[in-house]
């Protein structure tokens, strides 16, 4: 058990390091970041200062060395500065992370609260109203592109009906109610796909459990149907959705890139996309580090949850 734990942890670290290295090297391929600072057709820049900037950014060294410097600085808590404004990346991150985490958390709660109960209901009365409702949500959630759903939500609820704001997180000093309003569209749009995943997973796992021998036995013994469903079946059917929930939070932080762009949400996803387009490699590398580390953590948590929830699984390797 302890051995498995340690092994899993080491792999998580290797994974994150490899992921950041890949993106780090790629971002160096995009082109010389100096081109964004100095435009050849603009003001003249002497050869010497061009070289000096290259030296300052460490561009004259081989790629692996550059990565080594970057990662060892990161370990010491220095994430470098942004290319254009020369602000510390960490400062920028601290501004953006809360918005991203909040949106992901709210969407995650919505997805869970919609997906799991509806999945159970849909499995219990197969072919009933809830089954069709649930399957409809799942069907649309997995087929409709997130960016289009976002645009349509804006079109209907902001442009036509004028009920909800079209984007952004609203000013800091806005009232609680106002802030909630800003959350509604992005979180529902983001949560829909997750709810669809939950629904399908819960439904199939519930159906499988309800079909098992011990449920039949419980029924035959005369246990009330509510007790059979919630006490006997639901607990065991919960394992797949439980592990899914950990990964879903990571997926949300990932898929959020598009939602943030559509809704103009002041979060990490947008920051990361902009840093790609501007070739701001410190910001980009840090974003990827953040996303990859989060994903690795969540995958780890999912494994642990899985082991905890299902004692039959023993990792004896």
């Amino acid at each position, binding site marked *: 058990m302890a051995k498995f734990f340690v092994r899993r942890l080491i792999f998580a670290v290797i*994974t994150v390091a*490899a992921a950041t290295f*890949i993106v780090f090297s*790629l971002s160096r391929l995009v082109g010389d970041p100096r081109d964004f600072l100095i435009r050849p057709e603009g003001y003249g820049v002497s050869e010497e200062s061009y070289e000096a900037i290259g030296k300052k950014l460490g561009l004259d060294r081989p790629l692996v060395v550059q990565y080594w410097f970057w990662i060892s600085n990161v370990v010491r808590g220095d994430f470098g500065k942004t290319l254009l404004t020369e602000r510390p990346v960490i400062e920028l991150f601290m501004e953006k992370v809360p918005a991203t985490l909040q949106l992901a958390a709210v969407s995650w709660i919505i997805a869970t609260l919609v997906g799991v109960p509806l999945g159970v209901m849909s499995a219990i009365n197969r072919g009933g109203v809830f089954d069709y409702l649930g399957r409809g949500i799942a069907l649309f959630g997995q087929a409709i*592109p*997130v960016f289009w759903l976002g645009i349509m939500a804006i079109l209907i609820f902001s442009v036509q009906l004028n009920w909800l704001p079209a984007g952004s997180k609203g000013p800091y000093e806005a009232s609680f109610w106002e802030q909630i309003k800003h959350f509604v569209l992005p979180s529902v749009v983001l949560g829909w796909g997750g709810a669809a995943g939950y629904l399908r997973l819960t439904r199939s796992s519930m159906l499988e459990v309800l079909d098992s021998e011990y449920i039949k036995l419980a029924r035959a013994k005369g246990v009330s149907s509510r007790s059979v469903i919630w006490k006997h079946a639901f607990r065991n059917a919960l394992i*797949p959705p439980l592990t899914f929930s950990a990964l879903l939070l990571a997926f949300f932080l990932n898929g959020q890139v598009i939602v943030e762009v559509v809704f103009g949400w002041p979060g990490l996803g947008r920051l990361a996309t902009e840093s790609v387009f501007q070739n701001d490699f410190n910001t980009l590398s840090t974003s990827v580090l953040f996303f990859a580390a989060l994903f690795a953590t969540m995958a780890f948590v999912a494994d642990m949850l899985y082991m905890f929830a299902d004692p039959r699984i023993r990792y004896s390797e």
Partner: protein
Amino acid sequence: MVDLHSKIMRTPAVKRVYSPFKTSWDFVRRWPVLPGMVLAVLVFVTIFASQVAPHSFRETDLRQRNKPPIWMEGGSSERILGGDVVGRDILSRLIHGARVTVMVAGISLVSGAIFGTAIGLIAGYYGGLIDEVLMRIVDIWFSIPFILFALVVVLSFEPSLQVVLIMLAILAWSAFVRNIRAEVLLLKTTEYVAASRVAGASTLRIMFRHMLPGVFNTILVLASLRVGQLILAEASLSFLGAGIPAPTPAWGVMVADGRNYLDSAWWVSTFPGIAIGLTVMSFNFLGDWLRDKLDPRLRQVA
């Protein structure tokens, strides 16, 4: 006991006659009729795009700028689904866009499937260190945020059709590896594989003559479940501006084009989105149906 019971229950006293409505409804429920129709239209339109489309996809006409669809006030038969920001015919662009979608999804899926299956076969067959290394690579690949990765890659090599195809193939392969590997691990213990090894078959022969046919159903099901995701990924990349470059009419780009005209011309963004949704939905339906037919064990995968 069970057999006897069902025999008795199933013997009908009177032969039932179902209404034609019920029989045709049953047919629709049993076979993927609607998705099949949508996909048939898609394929037809892909092949005959230039013949079917009423206009060229790049012909601009400023008089038709943001022209509403034909059934709305001010619409004309010149632009059946309306005109876009520079007056191009949305219907014709949708038709030509279908070609892009089918081609991109098809090519990336096939190459991803071939590569993923090969890796899965190798990992499962050899086991040990090779298996461990390959599976860790898959794990690493899973932890990279795809959209960001694709953005970086596409921008480093200038957006082009080839780069997008490669990116999507890279997205497609990982799903195959895990499932094919699991399948191969089972096949390895079968007697016919042992027998062929005793008979002196080479490794390659065992892999491709004896194991590959065994995993073929799984490949088919995984592929059909994966197409939808590839189409969505392509559309997302196009939407973010890192997809197939203009003037090729990709559906995702068309949605992005209409974003700034939501209050005056909603149709510009709406119709391409419906096209994406319908296509993906049909593929998903078909995938579910295939899975239930061919390989119900994969239920948990999707």
